[in-house]
């Protein structure tokens, strides 16, 4: 094939955690100046493999070569010394330090009499200057004196990249870099990555998004269940083939959706305001309506008030102002429990901390919201047989893969955990369903299942508020879409008129009016 020495060669890497074989004889080459995409579903072993390459995990077996030389990488320190840098999915930045401090962290001797000047940081100005130069060289805008806590996620990602460049890396690993970005920021990021490869840098991009692979990759390696299931040049493949490789079966990329038949308004929110610490408005005077039988999609970059909106409606946090009505009845000031009994179901964004009690059995999780009512409790006593029968019924209905109804929920995979939450919440035929990030972290199969279930609820007459940072999901399911930015609704589009670019601009804070002006 190619005669150039690969920048990084991973050969027959194996890594297991307990019974799980996360990486099973994985081999991979990355050439200088190319973008290698690592594609796979959650749990396919992508991040594990890259953590091996970055020295965070020790492989059980296998060899690593950098520029043709066999090496062992026992720590991130050694990875950096071999010119390997990594931008983690959850940024590795210290929020209380400045950009410059984060970038130089770990690059200087801690005590050294010979290089005392190196260990002293009295001249931060000069250091900041140098960082600005490195950033400039690659066309990245960062303010070295800014505090990380004050930066947007997009800016933080640039800091992470500059941090790697400052260390002089030759290979940059990016773990799901677009998960936190707006579509426009994604385009900018890809343009930046192209300037890196033009300068000879190699890039490994971890992703589960097919369109990204097609947009930026030179080659792609597909992982499934810890094994390499295919390696392609981007020019020789197409989305459908990659999807099949990734999932292991034919998949329908589009959700089959009938037009909505919206009825009377079921959820009416008016002037909702939630103020956080330091008087910051998390939700500012927000007004929206969801009718029976429709899905209202809330698009937006994570952290723009989605969390507060879901929690305010379900009563977990008390709004500072505004009204929330469910079928005409105000629910502000009621407890989450009362609200749930009014017919408001909630799929919380973090199923593990809010949706389930992980140490409880599957059966007990199914009755979390009604455990003290008949038929589950009679004469102050829990009725184990009824609870078990109920669980068995829902396990079958929602296709929950568990060894037994008595198994702790913690033992189940993310997709099956989410099915427990979904099953519990829609079992009571809710009038309003607040679904926050319902498919976050789930594989294609489970996602498909949840989507179908949400559409079925809609067709059964539920009013669904769908909050998701996955624009694809919003576009696929919603009948109407509103965009949330800094706690405000900055625009609304109907589901069919929606297009990615327009919503993307609104997600970045541009108002619909200005869009019209710019568009003309």
């Amino acid at each position, binding site marked *: 094939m190619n005669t150039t020495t690969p920048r990084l060669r991973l050969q027959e890497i194996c890594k297991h*955690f307990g019974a799980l074989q996360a990486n099973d004889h994985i081999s991979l080459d990355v050439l200088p100046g190319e973008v290698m995409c690592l594609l796979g579903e959650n749990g396919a072993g992508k991040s594990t493999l890259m953590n091996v390459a*970055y020295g*965070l*995990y020790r492989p059980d077996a296998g060899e690593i070569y950098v520029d043709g030389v066999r090496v062992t990488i026992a*720590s*991130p*320190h050694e990875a*950096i010394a071999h010119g390997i840098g*990594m931008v*983690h999915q959850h*940024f*590795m*930045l*210290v*929020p*209380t*330090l400045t950009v410059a*401090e*984060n970038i*130089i*962290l*770990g*690059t*200087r*001797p*801690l*005590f050294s009499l010979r290089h005392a000047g*190196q*260990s*002293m*940081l*009295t001249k931060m100005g000069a250091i900041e200057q140098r960082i600005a130069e490195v950033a400039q060289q690659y066309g990245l805008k960062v303010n070295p004196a800014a505090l990380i806590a004050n930066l947007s996620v997009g800016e933080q990602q640039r800091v992470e990249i500059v*941090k790697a460049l400052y260390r002089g890396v030759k290979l940059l690993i990016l773990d799901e870099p677009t998960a936190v970005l707006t579509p426009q920021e994604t385009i900018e990021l890809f343009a930046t990555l192209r300037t890196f490869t033009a300068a000879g840098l190699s890039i490994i991009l971890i992703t589960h998004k097919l369109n990204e692979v097609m947009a930026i990759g030179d080659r792609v390696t597909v992982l499934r269940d810890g094994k390499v299931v295919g390696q392609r040049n981007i020019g020789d493949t197409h989305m459908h083939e990659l999807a099949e490789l990734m999932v292991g079966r034919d998949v329908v990329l589009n959700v089959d959706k009938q037009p909505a038949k919206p009825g009377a308004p079921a959820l009416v929110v008016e002037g909702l305001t939630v103020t956080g610490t330091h008087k910051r408005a998390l939700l500012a005077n927000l007004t929206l309506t969801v009718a029976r039988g429709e899905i209202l999609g809330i698009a937006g970059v994570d952290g723009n008030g989605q969390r507060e909106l879901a929690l305010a409606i379900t009563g977990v946090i008390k709004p500072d102002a505004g009204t929330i009505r469910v079928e005409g009845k105000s629910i502000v000031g009621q407890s989450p429990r009362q609200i749930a009994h009014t017919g408001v179901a909630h799929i919380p964004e973090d199923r593990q901390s809010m949706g389930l009690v992980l140490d409880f059995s599957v059966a007990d999780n199914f009755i979390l919201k009604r455990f003290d009512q008949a038929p589950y409790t009679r004469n102050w006593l829990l009725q184990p047989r009824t609870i078990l029968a109920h669980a068995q019924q829902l396990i079958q209905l929602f296709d929950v893969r568990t060894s037994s109804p008595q198994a702790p929920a913690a033992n189940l995979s993310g997709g099956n955990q989410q099915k427990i939450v979904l099953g519990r919440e829609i079992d009571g035929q809710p009038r309003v369903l607040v679904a926050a990030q319902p498919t976050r972290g789930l594989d294609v199969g489970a996602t498909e299942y949840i989507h179908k279930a949400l559409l079925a609820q809609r067709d059964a007459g539920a009013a669904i508020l769908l909050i998701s940072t996955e624009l694809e999901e919003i576009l696929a399911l919603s009948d109407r879409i509103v965009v949330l930015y800094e706690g405000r609704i900055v625009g609304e589009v109907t589901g069919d008129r929606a297009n990615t670019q327009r919503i993307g601009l609104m997600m970045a804070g541009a108002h619909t009016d200005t869009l019209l002006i710019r568009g003309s």
Partner: protein
Amino acid sequence: MDILITVQALLQATVRMATPLTFTAVGETYGERAGVVNIGLEGLMLIGSIAAYAVAYFSGSVPLGILAAAITAGVFGLCFGFITITLRANQIITGAALNLIGLGVSSYFYRAMFATVTDRAIQPLQPIQLPVLSSIPLIGPVLFDQNWLVYAALLLAPLAGFVLNKTALGLSLRAVGEHPKATATAGLSVLGLRYGAVVFGAMMAGIGGAFLSVAYANQFVENMVAGRGFVALAIVVFGRWRPMGALWASLLFGFFFALQLRLQTQNLAIPYQFFQVLPYVATIVAMILLRGQSAQPKALGVPYTERA
């Protein structure tokens, strides 16, 4: 002039009483900035005070005693580090155990070594009058007519502040207590930094304890630390996890210790126990006033593992 003399004596005692608190709190500030809380300071101070006293008594050298205190407490700190950092045991429980061990060990060795000794007094550290400076009215006697351990404490805080804020080492310490994983991915050793900070903190607590037996008093008394280790913990919070903050807070609490001593000698109609309570009440009041402030390092008290 009577008032002036009283104030001068009170402030002089304030600085003296603040010294063991400053050493201990500055050391603990480092440990906590690195993400490890050691509530066993009381025990470490007791270990320091018995070690310093015993070595000073038998060798005749107080500086040697202070060195022994630092080393002994440092070894105990190393054990604390092994249990909490390497074995990842709960820091609070381990610290509580360290307090009990410190009390037991110090009393045991004191009784074992000094049961038959009748003259237990040593020659404690003497004040060194700094030329010129000590003749400034009021400030001179308060700040510049003290023993060298007091001067060391007054210099330790700004030096520790400089290292924390202006060196690569300090930057790494600040990072590791906030976001250890980020620190690890930047190529630094989380465990190494934490061990260093914990052992340093223990050594400083040892010196703080030593001050009580070989500089403030002239012999060891069982449980002589009398809660100062816990006050130092409060001082770290009160000083907002900054060494200079710890110095100011130590002076404030030192003032209350000095004040209660003075009030006890005034022959007032109030039982002296009420005055003894003063510094501890001040601690509780300070904690209440500071509630809800979030300068605390994010990863404080959380053991670090590479996975997760």
